[in-house]
């Protein structure tokens, strides 16, 4: 890919880079609010604690002037545009700050007819990466504090946004930790792999944070909340936990854009993105499909073709 040849590789991304993006976001947000292109902008505001940020829905110029972008801007804001959050956004076009991985969710939501492109003004961020969990938040992004998903990011450029803030810069020499972990698990004998996941799922407390932050978990009635009759045991015990995680992985196959938000928010450190990536790999192998690259008419699991492989029907 020629993007690779052109990219600017560095060993640290300094606060000045994020500051420049911040300025660009503020300028755009103020502009589109002033000229009433949008009724509000979904972006990030700084948190009380050093090195934190939180999502915000801003509707005034004064608030828009406080928007930021920093390595703490980890959230995928597209979750605020879906049915699950209906009512939050007033009628009308909205602006949204989106990193490359967030753009994939937006494209996927358009594919699923949850969003219309013309209802959005997308302020794309040319994103070098964000903080991982439990790292030092110094303002500078380095190999030591970058999120695991960002180590293997292929979408630093936010394709398809209305405007893009930032210049293409990436950290050099990032080891693909997650791919390595996937290979390690893949190489395990089945029993060991089962034990690996059982151990992780045993810690799950069913707080549903992973579901609530996922842009694609917008079902009005989640199967896992059904209790008459109960589909999945809702108590946090081994059987129900395993069932919940299978349901989650399956329901997101071919849809998940890989933002890794589910994994980031898990208070029990369960590596959910490994499952997401495994499912994505299946979709790639079976249908040569990658979710969220561009909006498409229908994802492969929503579509029937006469020549689909039916050998699994016995």
């Amino acid at each position, binding site marked *: 890919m020629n993007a690779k040849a052109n990219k600017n590789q560095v060993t640290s991304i300094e606060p000045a880079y994020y500051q420049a993006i911040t300025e660009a976001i503020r300028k755009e947000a103020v502009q589109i609010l002033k000229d009433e292109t949008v009724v509000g902008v979904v972006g990030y505001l700084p948190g009380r604690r050093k090195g934190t940020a939180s999502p915000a829905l801003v509707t005034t110029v004064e608030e828009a002037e406080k928007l930021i972008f920093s390595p703490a801007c980890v959230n995928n804001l597209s979750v605020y545009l879906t049915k699950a959050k209906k009512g939050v956004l007033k009628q009308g076009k909205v602006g949204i700050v989106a990193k490359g991985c967030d753009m994939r969710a937006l494209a996927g939501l358009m594919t699923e007819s949850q969003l219309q492109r013309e209802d959005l003004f997308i302020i794309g961020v040319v994103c070098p990466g964000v903080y991982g969990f439990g790292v030092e938040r110094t303002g500078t992004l380095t190999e030591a504090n970058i999120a695991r998903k960002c180590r293997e990011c292929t979408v630093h450029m936010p394709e398809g946004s209305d405007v893009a803030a930032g210049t293409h810069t990436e950290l050099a020499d990032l080891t693909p930790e997650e791919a390595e972990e996937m290979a390690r698990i893949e190489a395990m004998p089945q029993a060991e792999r089962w034990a690996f996941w059982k151990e992780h799922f045993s810690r799950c407390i069913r707080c549903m944070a992973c579901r609530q932050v996922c842009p694609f978990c917008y079902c009005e009635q989640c199967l896992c909340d059904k209790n008459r009759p109960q589909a999945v045991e809702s108590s946090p015990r081994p059987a129900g936990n395993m069932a919940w995680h299978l349901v989650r992985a399956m329901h997101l196959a071919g849809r998940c854009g890989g933002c890794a938000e589910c994994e980031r928010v898990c208070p029990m*450190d369960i590596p959910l993105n490994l499952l997401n990536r495994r499912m994505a790999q299946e979709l790639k192998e079976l249908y040569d499909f990658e979710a969220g690259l561009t909006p498409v008419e229908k994802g492969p699991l929503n579509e029937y073709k006469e020549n689909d492989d039916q050998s699994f029907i016995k």
Partner: protein
Amino acid sequence: MPQIITEQNLRSLIDLLVKEAKLVVGPKLSGSVVLYEPLTAGSDLTLDALPRRSSKELFFPICEDILSYKRENGAMKVADVDRSKFPETVLIGPPPCDAGSPAILDAVMSWDYKDEFYLERRRKSTIVGIACTKGDDACFCRAVGLAPDAEAGSDLFLTPLKDGSYSCKAVTEKGEALVAAHLNLFAEGAGAEPVPFVDQAVEKLDLVKIKKWLEEHFEDPLWEKIADICVGCGACAFICPACHCFDINDEGSTDDGVRRKHWDACGFSKFTNHASGHNPRDVQNKRYRNRIMHKFKYYDDKFGKTLCTGCGRCIRACPVGIDIADILAQINRG
């Protein structure tokens, strides 16, 4: 004269208690997270991180069976859980923001309905709290009337000293009994200087003023502002030492199953969903408002206590960075 226990003897104490067939629970590394787990030896104890979940689960487990049923020859047989089998338990190592939680929860658990599952476990447990010298920018125990050296809830309270040992204070008879039964592990003396506490970023909160504000602001734009970004998960409630809501589900089949009690959270959209389909807390701002109201008004109205120990867990864990200390500080400033 305060008693002193060296770190090595503290670990030996755990070994001994395990030998005495007690359930000993303390912070322990489990995968990449520290949790309150059964300790099998003194060496399991990990005191350098606040466990990800609070110690409330010792008394109020994430999930527990409360009865089982089975249809036999056409008749339904119901079997209760034999609570007398709950083990004698020693909880070692909670900081004041965790050790203090039973002191808050006992009130609601022994109120109009006596929760015998919780109370039986409480009767059979001894809590060895440790003064907190770690702390980070999410902690605000001082602001809600606790402190890194608060003894509330502890039966025996340890204070870390600069030479690595601990000074011990028996707060209750249970604490005295624990020391008396293992006197050889403790030494008399004043001990070294205590390890200093970490400063906390949040200003002292005027809880009376906050409560008054809440009384007058059941409707307020603040709730919408927060709810705009709150995604309605259970993370904040589940890891909170003071939240105590639960759901009850019959799991299994109509002929053979178990009735289970497990954690629930007022942040969930289904939390108040009636069987009729009506949901009085139909939007997120009513749910988040309940979280704050319950902690800083309703619980105080009923039991004269604040339902928050300032542990900061919800601040660290909230997926969208909602910061309860910041919200309280805003209200406090008026």
